[in-house]
């Protein structure tokens, strides 16, 4: 094809349009890319997700006097409340070597998951301005949201470890000290990160389609919190073996268990390779299924 002086007339059929586009090397917009292309493109644009995540973490606390300090203060205060009510007053963790550490680890890890789920669910709607102005794989939005939460989790983890050490000073606490097992916290966080991103993918698509479901999410997360033994040991309170097994091997409970294996010395939470296999399995499964599920609606995000 060469240059013309007048624009071509509009194509008369879909085939004519496709043929003309093909001849001029154009690509169709508003259609879903293949999964392969999508994975590639998501990976190629990962810097975009990192920048968005970093900016979000920063923007979250910038309107306060204490600023970034809140990234540490909020989870610390949260843990304090739970320890006070469920550990000290109701004594739900009586019988554990370190009941306070038990609750602290549970609250910090669960908070990361629930914030990721909540944020991931809203990630497309919250960034509608971006979606409507720029081209990028929409999968980067849930990814960036969970990445931002991971960014806040890192300082929180230091608080968590510090709190476990401080709680060990109490006379009632039996504590084995800091050992190599603490390093296991790294894979535990990696697995819960994969899992949370998978959940964020799924919720992002569903809530974008039916925003009302976003309003139900807090209740689901609250139920899940009590079903995962965040503030009490499951094996001590659930006596039905089938129910106890379901509750202990569902992903969230598995990740709490892994983090507690790493940091605490509890006879009822021994180092257990099977649990680590469950953790890795759940993480990869949710991540892959969530990604594919999200990709299937790629061409539809932002319609409204």
């Amino acid at each position: 094809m060469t240059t013309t002086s007048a624009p071509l007339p509009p194509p008369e059929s879909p085939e004519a349009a496709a043929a003309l586009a093909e001849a001029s090397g154009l690509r169709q917009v508003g259609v879903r890319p293949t999964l392969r292309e999508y994975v590639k493109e998501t990976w190629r644009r990962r810097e975009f997700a990192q920048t968005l995540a970093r900016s979000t973490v920063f923007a979250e606390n910038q309107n306060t006097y204490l600023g970034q300090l809140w990234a540490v203060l909020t989870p610390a205060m949260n843990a304090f409340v739970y320890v006070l009510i469920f550990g000290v007053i109701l004594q739900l963790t009586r019988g554990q070597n370190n009941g306070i550490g038990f609750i602290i680890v549970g609250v910090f890890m669960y908070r990361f998951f629930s914030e990721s789920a909540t944020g991931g669910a809203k990630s497309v709607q919250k960034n509608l301005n971006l979606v409507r102005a720029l081209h990028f794989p929409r999968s980067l939005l849930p990814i960036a949201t969970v990445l931002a939460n991971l960014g806040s989790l890192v300082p929180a983890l230091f608080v968590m470890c510090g709190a476990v050490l401080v709680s060990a000073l109490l006379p009632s606490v039996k504590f084995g000290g800091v050992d190599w097992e603490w390093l296991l916290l790294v894979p535990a966080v990696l697995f819960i990160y994969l899992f949370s991103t998978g959940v964020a993918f799924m919720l992002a698509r569903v809530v974008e389609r039916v925003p009302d479901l976003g309003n139900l999410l807090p209740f689901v997360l609250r139920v899940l919190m009590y079903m995962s033994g965040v503030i009490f040991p499951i094996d001590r309170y659930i006596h039905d073996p089938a129910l106890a097994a379901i509750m202990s091997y569902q992903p969230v409970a598995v990740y709490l268990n892994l983090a507690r294996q790493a940091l605490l010395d509890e006879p009822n939470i021994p180092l257990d390779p099977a649990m680590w296999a469950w953790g890795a399995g759940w993480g990869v499964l949710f991540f892959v299924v969530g990604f594919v599920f999200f990709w299937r609606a790629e061409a539809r995000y932002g319609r409204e």
Partner: protein
Amino acid sequence: MSEDIDFEIDAEDLPDRADGTAQLGEPSVVVHDLHVTYRVFGSKRRPLPVGKQSRLRRFLAKGRTYAGAVTEVHAVRGVSFVAHHGESIGIIGTNGSGKSTLLRAVAGLHPPTQGSVYISGVPSLLGVNAALVKQLSGERNIMLGGLALGLSKAEIEERFDEIVDFAGIGDAVQLPMSAYSSGMAARLRFAISTAAVPDVLMIDEALATGDAAFRKRSKARIEEIRHAAGTVFFVSHSLASVRAMCTRAIWLDRGVIRADGPVDEIADMYAQYVKELHSAGKDDRDAAQ
């Protein structure tokens, strides 16, 4: 044109006309039978304000507007056209004729309900909402916008000063964009979007908020893009700016193309139509703006 229907821009403010004699390149956008619908939540038609209705009836009617209210808007209904490299196309029409929706769909940012759109490269759309992420500083918005346009971090840092200079926002680049005036935000967005020369640039009213000096600069940038074989789409209510910026015009009326051709011809037709509407005395404010 006889009666001036432009309130925003004085004719002498405008830079020279786009030169329409340039040769057209290959097609850059092919659109066939494009339909776009979108969902609007919580926007059922308001019940007629009849005073005689009983309290209960009014209450129920009101309730329906608050729960389960979803409206489908069919904004673009079967649009087809071909655009070429080196063309700048003005899209004109009254408020609510589907201009912005058409642009978003062609840019691939709003999925079509029916029909097909083919485009060259990665289009860049300048919308009315200029800030990408309002809570973030101009600096971070430049970073995000540049990355999404396919620039690398190093390339963005290299062009950073140029972008800030072009936008003319100075130290405000460190402030969150929620603190920007609409003019500042629009200028920054324009600078970001043209930092990498896009194959297809779409401008949706975004320049209306700029001052005269900025309009001159942006006009020069648009010409540059056109000469680099880009295609520019331009939505504006100001017929004078469409005449000055564009070589071709598409007149959209209630989601359908009413006319498509050389800018002067179409603009005259549209001006005539608006005048008639005006004298018919209906919707005058709507149409004339």
